[in-house]
């Protein structure tokens, strides 16, 4: 148990993961910065590298902040 505590203190997987909203907004901000710098939209890979968060977690966070798409409503009006 002591060892688990030590491990959690050193690499707490829960503390490390910031809030979803925070991750999503940071990702969008980095996207804008890179876009302005290179005048083309960066890939998610590049954003993930810059942010130091796995691609999958960014995908998850970005989806979480979107409005849920209604099943019976067209997506674009």
């Amino acid at each position, binding site marked *: 148990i002591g060892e688990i505590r030590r491990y959690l203190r050193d690499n707490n997987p829960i503390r490390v993961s910031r809030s979803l909203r925070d991750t999503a907004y940071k990702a969008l901000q980095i996207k804008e910065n890179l876009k302005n710098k290179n005048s083309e939209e960066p890939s998610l*890979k590049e954003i993930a590298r810059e942010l130091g968060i796995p691609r999958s977690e960014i995908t998850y966070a970005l989806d979480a902040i979107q409005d849920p798409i209604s099943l019976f409503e067209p997506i674009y009006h």
Partner: protein
Amino acid sequence: MHNKAHLTLLGKSSNVGLARITTATFASELDFTLSELEEIKVAVSEAVTNCIIHAYPMDEGIIELDLEIEDCKLIIIIKDQGIGIKDIEAVLQPSYSTKEEHMGLGLAFIDSFMDEFKLISEIDEGTTLRMIKIPEQLKNTVE
């Protein structure tokens, strides 16, 4: 680069998000931009929603999602065992829908967002939709 995954799910509306996120996460191994990933998510949502509404109008059928990365291409295959499509030519027309209140734009979105797509169907056997998307970034370097 090569990768494969397969997702089987129940055709209920709460599972559209599951199909969408699983596909986007799988796709993120390739050099897609966030906008391209959005397009992929819309295409998958439309396809899975079609299975739920059209293929299985009465019950919750099973939907199969085959994901593959091959030569930096993303291949998505969505399969149902539902009622099938009578006239494929007709359903591919934008604004065509067999349901009154529907817009008939799902397949048109899929067409415009994906690099390739193909619909195969057999009445009472089911429908298979095969889509391919290649990162724009890659197309530019190849040219």
